[in-house]
C-alpha cells in the first residue's frame, strides 16, 4: 500500500476520532444549559467533560497538522478556500476554550450566565461549520488548474455541505445527551435521556437523508462507504433503542458509532480525491497529486507508529480515572462561596460580588 494512501487513512482516523470524541463534548457544551436547571446542575454537566474536552480538541489540531504535513496542497487549498468559515470556527473554538476556564472564576450570576450562553452557541457552531466544510470537500468547490479556489464565501454554502453540517450538529447533540446520561444521576440524567432519544430520532432521519443524498449525489455507491453508512444508521437506531431501556453505556456506544460511521462514510466516499473541483474533474486534488514526498511520509509514519499507541493509552487511562458519574452536591464545595444550591436572584448576587471586590 502506498504511503500516501496510508496517510489518507491516518487523517481519516484523526477526523473520525475528533468527531466521535469532541462530538459528545460539543453536545454537552450546547446542552448543559438545558439539562441543568440551576448553576450547580449546569456545573455538573460541564464537569462531566472537564478532564477530557481539551485533549479531544487536539484531535482536530493533529488532524489539521497531518493534512499540512502529508498533503500540503490539500491543506493550502482547503484552508484558503474555507477562509471566512474557518475564521468563524476559530472564534467559536476560542470562545469555547476560554468559556470552560473562565466561567467558574467569578461568583457572579451574570458572568456565569454570559459564559454559559457563549459555550452553548460556540459549541453548536463548531460541528455545523466543520460539517459544511467537510461536506464541501466531497460535493466540490470551484477550483482552478492551479489548485486555487475561485469562488466566494457564498459558494461554500452548498446544499450538501449544509445538510452534512446540520446532520453532524444533531448527531453531536444526541451524543452529548447520551454522554450526560452516562455520567450523571437523578434529574440531570433523566432530562439527558429524554433529549438523547429526541435528538437520536431527528439525527437518524437526517442521517438517512444524508446517506441518500451522498449515494445518489456526489459520493456515488461505493461499497466501503455503504458499509459505514449502514453501521452509522444501525448505531444511531441502537442508541435510541437502548436509551429508552435505560442502558446508558450501550446507548452512548451506539450514538458514538453513529457519528464515527457517518464521518468514515464521508472519507470513504471522497477517496481517492481529497478535494473535488466543481469546475473540472481534471482539477480535483487527489491523494496522489497533493501528497508530500515519500521520505517525509516515511518519517511521519515512524513518528505516528511510535506516538499514537502511547497517546491512545494515556487518553484511555484518563477516561478510566474519571469514569464515575457526577452528582450534584447537596452542599457546594468550599472553593466556590456565594453560589448556593438555590440560585440567588441576580440583584442579590451583584451585591455579594461587589463585597468580594
Amino acid at each position, binding site marked *: 500500500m502506498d504511503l500516501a494512501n496510508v496517510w489518507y487513512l491516518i487523517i481519516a482516523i484523526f477526523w473520525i476520532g475528533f468527531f466521535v470524541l469532541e462530538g459528545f463534548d460539543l453536545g454537552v457544551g450546547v446542552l448543559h444549559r438545558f439539562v441543568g436547571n440551576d448553576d*450547580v446542575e449546569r*456545573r455538573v454537566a460541564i*464537569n462531566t467533560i*472537564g*478532564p477530557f474536552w*481539551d*485533549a479531544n*480538541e*487536539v484531535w482536530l*489540531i493533529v488532524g489539521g*497538522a497531518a493534512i*499540512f*504535513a*502529508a498533503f*500540503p*496542497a490539500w*491543506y*493550502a*487549498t*482547503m*484552508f*484558503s*478556500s*474555507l*477562509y*471566512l468559515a474557518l*475564521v468563524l470556527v*476559530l*472564534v467559536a*473554538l*476560542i470562545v469555547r*476554550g*476560554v468559556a*470552560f*476556564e*473562565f466561567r467558574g*472564576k*467569578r461568583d457572579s450570576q451574570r458572568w456565569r450566565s454570559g459564559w454559559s450562553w457563549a459555550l452553548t452557541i460556540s459549541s453548536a457552531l463548531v460541528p455545523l461549520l466543520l460539517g459544511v466544510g467537510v461536506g464541501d470537500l466531497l460535493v466540490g468547490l470551484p477550483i482552478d488548474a492551479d*489548485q*486555487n479556489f*475561485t469562488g466566494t*464565501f457564498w459558494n461554500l454554502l452548498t446544499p450538501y455541505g449544509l445538510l452534512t453540517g446540520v446532520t453532524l450538529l444533531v448527531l453531536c447533540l444526541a451524543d452529548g445527551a447520551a454522554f450526560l446520561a452516562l455520567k450523571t444521576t437523578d434529574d440531570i440524567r433523566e432530562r439527558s435521556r429524554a433529549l438523547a432519544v429526541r435528538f437520536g430520532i431527528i439525527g437518524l432521519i437526517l442521517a438517512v437523508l444524508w446517506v441518500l443524498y451522498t449515494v445518489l449525489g456526489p459520493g456515488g455507491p461505493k461499497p466501503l462507504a455503504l458499509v459505514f453508512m449502514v453501521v452509522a444508521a444501525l448505531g444511531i437506531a441502537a442508541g435510541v433503542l437502548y436509551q429508552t431501556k435505560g442502558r446508558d453505556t450501550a446507548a452512548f456506544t451506539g450514538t458514538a458509532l453513529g457519528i464515527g460511521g457517518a464521518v468514515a462514510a464521508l472519507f470513504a466516499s471522497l477517496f481517492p480525491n481529497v478535494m473535488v473541483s466543481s469546475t473540472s474533474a481534471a482539477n480535483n486534488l487527489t491523494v496522489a497529486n497533493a501528497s*508530500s*514526498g515519500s*521520505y*517525509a511520509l516515511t*518519517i*511521519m509514519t515512524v*513518528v505516528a507508529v511510535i506516538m*499514537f499507541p502511547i*497517546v491512545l493509552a*494515556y487518553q484511555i487511562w*484518563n477516561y478510566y*480515572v*474519571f469514569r*464515575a458519574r457526577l*452528582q450534584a452536591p447537596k452542599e457546594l*464545595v*468550599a*472553593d466556590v462561596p456565594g453560589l448556593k444550591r438555590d440560585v440567588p436572584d441576580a440583584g442579590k448576587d451583584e451585591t455579594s460580588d461587589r463585597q468580594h471586590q
Partner: protein
Amino acid sequence: MSNVDLARLQFAMTSIYHFLFVPLTIGLAFLTAILQTRWHRSGDPNLRKLTRFFGNLLLINIAIGVVTGLVQEFQFGMNWSEYSRFVGDVFGAPLAMEGLAAFFLESTFLGLWLFGWDRLPKKLHLACIWLVSIGSALSALFIIAANSWMQNPVGYQINDQNGRAQLDDVVAIFTNPVFINAYLHVLFASAVTGAVMMLGVAGYQIRKGNKQFLTAAKTSLVVLFPSIILAMGVGSELGVIEATYQPMKIAAAEAQWETCQPCSFSLFQIGGGNDDQDPKQIIEVPYLLSILATNSPDGQVVGLNELQAQYEQEYGPGYYVPNVFVQYWSMRLMAYTASAVALLGALGLFLWWRKKLEGARWFWGLAIIGIFTPYVMNTAGWMLTENGRQPWIVQGLMKTESAASPSVTALEIWISIIVFALVYIILGVIWASLMFRAARKPLPEDEPTAPDDKSRDDVPALTY
C-alpha cells in the same frame, strides 16, 4: 495596503499576541511543578497552597495560549497557501509531530492534574504537572524547529517536477545550529517570564504582609537569575550564528551600512532607518558589535550596502534590506529589558544573601513593575528575528511577497483582522482582570481536605 501586507499584519498581530501567553505557560508550568515537588518532599501545607495559587494563574493563562495557538496553525493555510504548498513537505512534519508528541501530552495531563487533586495518588498527581511542563516545552521545540528552517533551510531538496521543497534529511532539521540555539533561547526566556511573574506576584503579597509567599519568591529568584544569564548568553551565540546565515539581519540590527572591522556598538541613535544611512550614533562602545556578531573583538561585519550588492548578484534585482529602524530598536529593546531583568534578579539574590529580602519593600515594588519587562523583551526578540528575515519568508528560497493565498481577497483579510483584533482585545481584558483577581487573593486559611469516602475517589471534582 496589498493583500500580502494585510496578511503580514494579521500574522504579526496574532503571533505576537499568542507569544504573550506561551512563555508564561512554559515558565509557570515549570515553576508550579517545582513548588509541587517541594510540597511533595516537605509536606509543608503552605507549599501546597502556593502550588494551587500559582497553578490557578497558570490555568487562566494556558487557556488563552491554547486557543490562540489554533489560529496560528490554521493561518498558514488560510493566508499563506502558496507558502504552505511550497514548504508543507518540510514544515508540516514538525507541526504534526508537535500535535502528536506535545499537545496531547499537555492537554491530557493538564486535565488529569486539574481534576486529580485529592483523587490521584500524590506521586502520580505530581508526575502530571511535570508532564504538562514537559509537553509545553516540547511544543516549543517543534515550533522553533519549523521556524529555524525558515531562517536557515536545511535537510531539503527542491523537487524538479513541481518546484516544491521536499524533506530529505530529518536529522538536519533538528541539528540546525539556528534551531538548537533558538530553542534554548526560548526556553530560558520562558523560565525568565514565569519567574518574573512569580516574583512580582509574591512581591505584591509580601508587601501586603502575606509572608507565606516568601518561599515562592525565593524559588523564583533561584530560577530567574541563571535563566536570564543563560538566555542572554545563548542569545548572543544565536546572534553570531545568524550573522553567518542571515548577515542582513545582524547588520540591520546595528544599522551598519558600511563594512567595518573592528565594529563598535551604539547605545542609541537619532534618526536612522532605510532612508537615512548616516544617523547620529550616541555613545559608541568599541569592539562590541564585532564581539556580538563574530565572537572576536576584531571581527568583520559586512555592511548592508555590500550585502545588498551581493544579494542582487545571487538572487537577481530587488531590495534585500529588512526594515532597519525596526531591527535596530527591537535589538536594543530586547537587550536593555533583559539587562534590567538580570539586575532585578541579581538584586534579589544580593538582598537574600544579606538577609534583607523580606523587609525590602522597595525591591518588591520593583518586582511588581518588573512583571511587564519580559513581555517587552520577548516581543522585541521575535520582531528582531522575524523582521530580520524579510524580504524572505524562507531565507533565500521564497519571498514573502509570493507566499500569500491568491484566492483570499483584501476584504476577507480585513474581516478576519478586525474579528481577531476584537476577540483578542476582549480576551486580553478578561485575562488581565482574572489574573489581577487571582494574584491578589490571599492564600486560603484551610485547604479543603481530601474526602474521607474512598469509594468516591474517582469522581471528578466540580472544578469548572
